[in-house]
């Protein structure tokens, strides 16, 4: 047919068919470029994901996670150590103070004993004089004089020895007391400071550790989201195969309409036989093109979202966290070194205190020996008193002086006995002090000290792990940051492919207008074309070559004048049916 507006409509339809044919070629290469671009993005993103996975894995290792409990354990051990140390030091101070008082009492006792020794010596001399005066009668008292002299010398030696030791001991004890008295507030102050610092370090470590766990996890989540979006784009592009077939079939449909119009003998034949078919055929192709346009719009939205998401990825938190963790590790190491230094200082003090306290045992031994000697002297004095009184009574008035001496010995013996009891009491007290000292020294030097050592060693190991992890994370974070920059610079290629794809499909808009214009021309020229044709005939004619369910749905919507069916945009895809 070559006359009237019908020929203009045919030309328009044929033009659109040619445009769609050209679009098929352009779109195929544009789709390939988009797929390649996003494949590249997927590879880059995959590498970043691997890096982040290694970071997350390292951060989640127990050796790193346990640093918090180790620092908390160290703080607790330091607190316990300080508390025990202060308590034990107070206990040792009490012992030292008690010993100092005891030494004062011992000095007092030895002074009294020295006085008695001098009195015994005097009695010995007096006895000797009396023995000389009595002559043969007094020969029996020679032994008494000798014994008194011997006792006096023995006691004097013992007292001298004990006094020398107590003086020496007093001096050592005073020194220990001074050291402990001066050291106690310092220990209290140092450990209070450590406790405060460790508490604040712990808060900082908790915060940075949370960041250390959160930053890679957040980054991973962002990168995973991008991976999902890239997969989404790649999956969406699959639909192009359906779209391509839709385009091929639109081209075919338009050629069919144009061909049928061309073979019509004249306008009358065209109007009578083909009008409704041509009009409906053009409506079907318009619907198919609009369906394609919607699909392309969906791709563009998906690609745009993905590219914008890639640009938003930031590795700055991930990169920033490592120096922060390293700084805290350094602070904690300094704190740990300080604790260890204090611990060493305390150990040194322990040795000195142990040395001083061990002197208590020597004192106990000396006092014990002295008490033994005193008891022996007491017993001998009692016996001498008894014998001399009997002997003096036997001699009668001639031995009045001796009797007087015997009475003096008896009095001395009683005083000595009392002093001996007091010495024995002092001895009991020293023994109690020795026992108490042993227990305090144990608390002072062993258990808590051991707990602190263990906690310090554990923390040192934990800090080592944290340092290694931070260095590892730092290295991987730098690689991830570089990968992110590469990923972001790679979007240019994908973006260009997207633009090329969008430009290719711009022709659909003008194609739709041309088809609408052609349809209007046909309907104006041949009003019968507006009449609904044989639906079954039209459906058979245009769906015979369809290969997708989508096209069939669009065709049905076109023929019923219904809304455009939603294209399959779901990323779920179809499952596999095995025969």
């Amino acid at each position: 047919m070559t006359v009237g507006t019908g020929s203009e409509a045919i030309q328009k339809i044929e033009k659109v068919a040619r445009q769609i044919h050209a679009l098929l070629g352009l779109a195929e290469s544009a789709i390939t470029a988009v797929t390649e671009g996003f494949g590249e993005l997927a590879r880059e993103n995959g590498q970043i994901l691997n890096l982040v996975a290694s970071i997350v894995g390292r951060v989640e290792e127990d050796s790193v996670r346990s640093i918090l409990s180790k620092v908390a354990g160290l703080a607790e051990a330091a607190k316990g150590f300080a508390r025990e140390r202060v308590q034990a030091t107070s206990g040792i101070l009490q012992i030292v103070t008690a010993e100092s008082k005891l030494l004062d009492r011992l000095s007092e006792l030895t002074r009294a004993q020295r006085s008695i020794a001098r009195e015994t010596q005097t009695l010995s001399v007096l006895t000797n004089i009396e023995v000389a005066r009595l002559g043969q009668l007094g020969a029996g008292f020679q032994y008494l004089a000798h014994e008194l002299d011997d006792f006096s010398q023995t006691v004097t030696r013992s007292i001298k020895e004990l006094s020398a030791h107590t003086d020496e001991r007093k001096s050592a004890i005073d020194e220990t007391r001074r050291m402990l008295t001066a050291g106690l507030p310092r220990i209290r102050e140092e450990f209070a400071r450590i406790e405060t610092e460790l508490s604040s370090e712990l808060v900082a470590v908790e915060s940075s550790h949370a960041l250390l766990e959160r930053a890679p996890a957040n980054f991973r989540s962002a990168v995973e989201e991008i991976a999902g979006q890239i997969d989404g784009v790649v999956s969406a592009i699959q639909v192009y195969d359906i779209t391509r077939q839709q385009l091929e079939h639109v081209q075919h449909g338009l050629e069919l309409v144009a061909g049928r119009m061309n073979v019509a003998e004249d306008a009358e034949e065209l109007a009578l036989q083909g009008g409704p078919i041509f009009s409906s055929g053009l409506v079907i192709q318009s619907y198919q093109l609009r369906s394609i346009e919607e699909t392309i719009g969906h791709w563009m939205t998906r690609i745009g979202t993905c590219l914008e998401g890639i640009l938003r990825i930031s590795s700055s938190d991930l990169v920033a966290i490592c120096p922060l963790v390293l700084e805290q590790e350094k602070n904690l190491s300094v704190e740990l070194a300080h604790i260890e230094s204090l611990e060493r200082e305390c150990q040194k003090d322990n040795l000195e205190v142990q040395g001083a306290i061990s002197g208590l045992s020597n004192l106990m031994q000396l006092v014990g020996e002295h008490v033994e000697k005193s008891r022996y002297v007491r017993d001998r004095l009692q016996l001498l008193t008894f014998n001399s009184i009997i002997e003096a009574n036997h001699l009668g008035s001639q031995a009045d002086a001796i009797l007087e001496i015997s009475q003096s010995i008896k009095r001395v013996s009683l005083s000595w006995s009392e002093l001996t009891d007091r010495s024995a009491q002092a001895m009991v007290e020293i023994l109690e002090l020795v026992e108490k000292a042993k227990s305090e020294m144990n608390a002072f030097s062993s258990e808590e000290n051991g707990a602190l050592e263990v906690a310090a060693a554990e923390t040192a190991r934990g800090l080592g792990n944290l340092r290694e992890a931070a260095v590892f994370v730092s290295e991987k974070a730098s690689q991830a940051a570089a990968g992110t920059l590469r990923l972001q610079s790679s979007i240019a290629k994908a973006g260009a492919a997207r633009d090329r794809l969008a430009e290719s499909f711009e022709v659909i808009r003008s194609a739709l207008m041309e088809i609408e214009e052609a349809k209007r021309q046909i309907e104006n020229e041949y009003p019968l074309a507006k009449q609904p044709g044989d639906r079954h005939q039209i459906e058979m004619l245009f769906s015979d070559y369809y290969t997708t369910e989508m096209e069939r749905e669009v065709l049905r919507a076109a023929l019923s004048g219904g809304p455009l069916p939603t294209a399959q945009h779901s990323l779920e895809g179809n499952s596999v049916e095995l025969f």
Partner: protein
Amino acid sequence: MKQVLTVDDSASIRQMVSFTLTKAGYEVTEAVDGKDGLEKAGKRRVDLIITDLNMPNMDGIQMIAAIRKLPGYAFTPILMLTTESQAEKKDAGRKAGATGWIVKPFNADQLTAVVQKLVK
């Protein structure tokens, strides 16, 4: 490494299948139509074939029928990956010797899972 042959006249679909299965550890060879697929299957033994139905030169059903006659391909899994969902087409595919049918677009995870199941 197990060999997979993907046959499709759509370059993007070939790329999608390659992208999905390469990630899963398969070596994927591409063919542009049934004729090309038949030639490539004949030259190099593959463990699984994924083919489109409507292709120029030789369609998927013709290709399957021809491949089944090649030595060593009697039991090789062949999946149809097509936009077609009509029962008569599926029936034709089954009769030609297809192992399974997937209507485009495919679910990447399910495709990987079924390939892993069929290629042991």
